[in-house]
């Protein structure tokens, strides 16, 4: 479960201070698939950073499964990311000098998992995203969509409780984006992992069961969706 309580994140100080997140509160239950939308600079990505412990809030609490991320030190936050949170980024963020399999296994290597277990879990993760046949390929030999699937496998290999996906379709065309969103949706359905998706695109936001709309770091709209809308419209419950 993810819970934000009156979270403020300000950058800079004094008169030049900018509030990227402004008194934001929400509770995201386990197994949810939520999307966050909003214009550029509305604080969507910053919310993901806060949840992952990559940056501390200026005030308020960020709870992940009951643990306050804001009170964790750097090593504890890193351990949280290694064991509980899978992060998927728009730029894929694969290491070009490692194969797909090595990239997927990196969080386990960082966590000191034995190589035999790393190999087994990498195999499973790649199978989950249908990339087993490309395990030995380097990222430069993969298409954008394939690279993003490898990145998703890397997020899943730790068997996370939460997947934070920051514009995962941003570098892909519409068709490639749909493949990735289908995959994320399918994983959420199959594994029950909590997915928090940041996107600009209402078509992809429609995969989520709830959409938060942020403006200037504050929650402007909280829209539960009744059903997925393949045409891109967001249906609001009730």
């Amino acid at each position, binding site marked *: 479960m993810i819970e934000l309580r009156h979270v403020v994140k300000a950058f800079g100080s004094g008169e030049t201070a900018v509030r990227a997140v402004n008194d934001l509160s929400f509770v995201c239950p386990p197994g949810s698939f939520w999307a966050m939308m909003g214009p550029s600079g509305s604080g969507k990505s910053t919310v993901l950073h806060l949840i992952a412990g990559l940056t501390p809030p200026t005030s308020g609490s960020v709870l992940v499964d009951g643990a306050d991320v804001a009170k964790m030190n750097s090593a504890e936050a890193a351990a949280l990311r290694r064991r509980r949170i899978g992060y998927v980024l728009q730029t894929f*963020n694969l290491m070009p000098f490692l194969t797909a399999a090595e990239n997927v296994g990196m969080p386990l290597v*960082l966590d000191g998992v034995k190589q035999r277990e790393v190999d087994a879990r990498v195999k499973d993760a790649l199978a989950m995203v249908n990339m087993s046949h490309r395990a030995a390929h380097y990222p430069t030999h993969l298409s954008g969509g394939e690279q993003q699937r490898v990145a998703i496998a890397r997020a899943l290999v730790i068997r996370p409780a939460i997947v934070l996906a920051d514009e995962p379709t941003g570098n892909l065309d519409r068709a490639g984006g749909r493949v990735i969103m289908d995959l994320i949706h399918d994983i959420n359905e199959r594994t029950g992992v909590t997915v928090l998706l940041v996107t600009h695109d209402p078509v992809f936001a429609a995969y989520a069961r709830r959409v938060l709309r942020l403006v200037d770091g504050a929650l402007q709209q909280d829209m539960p969706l009744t059903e997925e809308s393949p045409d891109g419209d967001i249906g609001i419950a009730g």
Partner: protein
Amino acid sequence: MLRLLRQVSFRQLQASWGRTTLVVGGVATGVSLIVAIQVINASVLDNLRRTIELIAGPAALEVTLGVGEVGFSEATVETVRADPAVAAAVPLVRGTISLADDPSETLQLFGADLTAEEDLERYRISLTTDRREVLRSMDDPGAILLAEAFATRHALGIGQHLKLSTPAGVKDFTVRGLLAPAGVARVFGGQLAVMDLPAAQLVLGTEGRIDQVDVLLRPEADVTTTQRRLEAALPSTLQVARPEQRGAQYETILASFQAMLTGLSLLCLVAGVYIIYNTTSTGAVHRALVIAGLRVTGASADQLFRLLMLEALVLGVAGTGLGIPGGIALARLLTGLVSDSMGVIFQLRFPVDGLSIEASRQVAIAAIGIGAALFAAYFAARRVTALDPLEVMRADLRALAPQTGTYRLVLAWLGLVGVSALALVERRSRDTVAAPVAFRRRGSGRGGKPLSLGHAYGCHDRGGRACSRHRNHRGIAHREFP
């Protein structure tokens, strides 16, 4: 951490081989220069000490006019001999002469008191022919003893004549004996001639004057007491010192030159550190993406900082491992040149037979090289691990990163090293086996070309008039009066 080093660092270093080469090359270049300068300095000093020891022989004290070749009155010998503790006082003159038909072939001329046969033995100048007969024949003012190596090189045998340029003009000499390559003859690498004292004084234009008195004491004599007594008895312009003290004097003189070389080597290390810092900093653009990626996937900033420092340690060790043998090789090429330069600048001419390589010094230099690599990497590692990973990934750093700069830098570095090495090898190939005395290039014997010298030294003539001593482009010395 070692697993990360193997799986992340080594793979990335391999992928960005240009940057890796620059870092290792930067450390190796800096370390090799420090090693080379240290080995050259140590070798020159060690050989200087050996030379002074060989020249001094068993003498307990030396009377000299400080460092220089002006000379002092021969009457000083009698004053020294009058001391009850003195067993023998042996006067000596020294000078430089050259072949009349090849002024680049110079000889250190020793004028010793050959009437006492044991003088030669004391100074370890041994003769290959009948010693007694040779000494008898040295009464002739044109008689000269030549080192075997020199005589062989110029096809000169006993009884043969040669013309030599001396301060008194070109004169005819007769070879009366040969000096085996041992003792002083070996020290001067064969560029040695010995004459009887009065004849040598005549040739050098220093009649009645000597350069040095070697003092042998009676077995029961106390060296310090005798030294003080002689200092009191002799003019204050003369120095009475143990041979090793004289060596210390020369070492003091050499110290400034060697300090300059050491300073230059440290500057090279600073340049090496700068190269490492620069390459690690510019590489941080590429690195930042990988580091940010690792942060997002669960690595802590401290963990990555340790990884980067471990990586710097490995690169530092690799660079040092290449730099130390490289520095020793460089020292082999340069020691002769540095020794010759010192000879020209300080009027101290002696050969450098072997390199003095101290393991403890090399270990210390290795520590400096590795420490420099860690120091240079520290700041870049701190900076790159402190970056907000998501800010790094948002910026399109891949597009900003230079793609070809490193490759060109590596080529430039390799080119500089290669050109320097070729220049040294070419210079070395033109050098002779040993020509430590001459003001000329080492090597090639007759074909050796003279160094161009424009140095002038202050001096005084026998009447005390100020003059300046010059050497022309062939290394021939002459005095000029205002």
